[in-house]
């Protein structure tokens, strides 16, 4: 059915760029998003890019904690 392929539907607004995708993912790590920003995300994000950005942000998150731990122990 059509809904599953929304991303490819004609008339879909512009695709979100790298930073817009990262911004959405980073907000997701905090778990809060304004309604308008969410509507913009829903219209423009590419699910595959979100998955890739999620993995990248996860790696950054882990590296950040490792760095904080190293600083604490230094």
């Amino acid at each position: 059915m059509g809904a599953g392929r929304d991303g490819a539907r004609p008339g879909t607004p512009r695709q979100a760029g790298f930073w817009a995708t990262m911004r959405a993912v980073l907000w997701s790590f905090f778990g809060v998003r304004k309604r308008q920003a969410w509507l913009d995300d829903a219209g423009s994000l590419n699910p595959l890019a979100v998955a890739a950005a999620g993995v990248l942000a996860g790696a950054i998150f882990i590296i950040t904690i490792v760095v904080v731990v190293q600083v604490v122990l230094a």
Partner: protein
Amino acid sequence: MAAVTHDQIQAHHPGPTGLMRWLTTTNHKDIGTLYMIFSFIMFLSGGVMALTIRAELFQPGLQVVQPEFFNQLTTMHGLVMVFGAIMPAFVGFANWMIPLMIGASDMAFARMNNWSFWLLPPAAILLLGSFFVPGGASAAGWTLYAPLSVQMGMGMDMAIFAIHIMGISSIMGAINIVVTVLNMRAPGMTLMKMPMFCWTWLITAYLLIAVMPVLAGAVTMILTDRHFGTSFFNAAGGGDPVMYQHIFWFFGHPEVYIMILPAFGIVSHIIPAFARKPLFGYASMVYATASIAILSFAVWAHHMFATGMPAAGQLFFMYATMLIAVPTGVKVFNWVATMWRGAMSFETPMLWATGFIFVFTIGGFTGLICAIAPIDIQVQDTYYVVAHFHYVLVAGSLFALFAAAYYWLPKWTGRMPSERLGKLHFWCSMVFFNITFFPMHFLGLAGMPRRIPDYALQFADFNAMASVGAFGFGLSQLIFIAVVLKCARGSGERAAARAWEGAEGLEWTVPSPAPHHTFEEAPVVK
């Protein structure tokens, strides 16, 4: 159940009847019902084991069971409740409700769905039957830590095989849910219009696919250590028993979220329905769910602080675990904000949902306390941990399951559940649950270890209290059977299509009880 009676089916869909109908069914509602009946039977079986444990612990000394059997009971209680009761119950809800919520006619892989379910009874027979083989059931704890699990009798092999089978069932169920949600939504239902229960299950399904093979790998390595001469976890052969714990908890921590994320989804439907307001921060809820799922892969070793690890490791897992509290806190905030200034009424599902928020939050907070490495080393393997995870799994997962059952019973059976019995069930469960598990915090802080059949005299009073509460809690669940039987037999007030005044969603657009086949023509979502 009355929802899918014989006559209704025959009128539309000639096919096998009686037992063969249930064996061969590919209908998502039938399979959902089977899952729920199965999980409730397992819940009662695990409950009887819990009550035997509590009977033994009512007084110091050994009165009811032998220590070896006691260990089998604690092990099997955990395995049965996690893999036999909670997980299949959520899959049952997913089967019944996801197609109705997204406007699909059935699950994507209907035959695989049948197989997913029918793998479970043999696994349950293996698990429960292991009590009767020489050496009895596995007594290594539900975590099946090596080297104990390498040393047990054939009951351990049966548990391993049962876990393999249940894992296959879970993975197939999860694939089915992912494909159904991604491909079979009604036209117009974009991902961000999708009901929260579907969102939380979609993310849970990904977690299942990611971690069930890890568990399968862990228990397979135990199996080969036991019978095929390998030494994965045997230090004498160059292996490492602590490696088992790493592998197990890499599965085990996401597993905790597998058992709680669908509960979050359920509560996110019930609170708005009875507060008569849309869910506050829908997008945040989706994002927070995703966030919890991702973070759940980076915290596993907080279960292992006492195994000895470098300070850097302790700090890493401690910080990561504490950060998970942020998206979880966002969820609790959103539920409370949804209730804020809402036109609230407290029918039975809402009682369970608000009760869930209250007691689950206590479990969340004690989780934060356990996350702090220096504290955790003190309370590791004490009753504090037992109290913590029962606040999460009973007050969290189980209370949400009851909330969902009362919420959707009208849709399944066409009858409203008895408010009088439902409220009695809630208040008895709530009071007895707290009588059972709250004193365990004090027992744990005082140093009472878990998984022991006998204890020192100073722990006697709180243990007696917990045992009385446990029997009260167990007996309270019989009220639920009465409620369900009453609805299933067709007595009680008739339910309208939209059974609850404030309920929203496609499932409330079909008649109650839901016909055997729904949405053969996909609805259009505006």
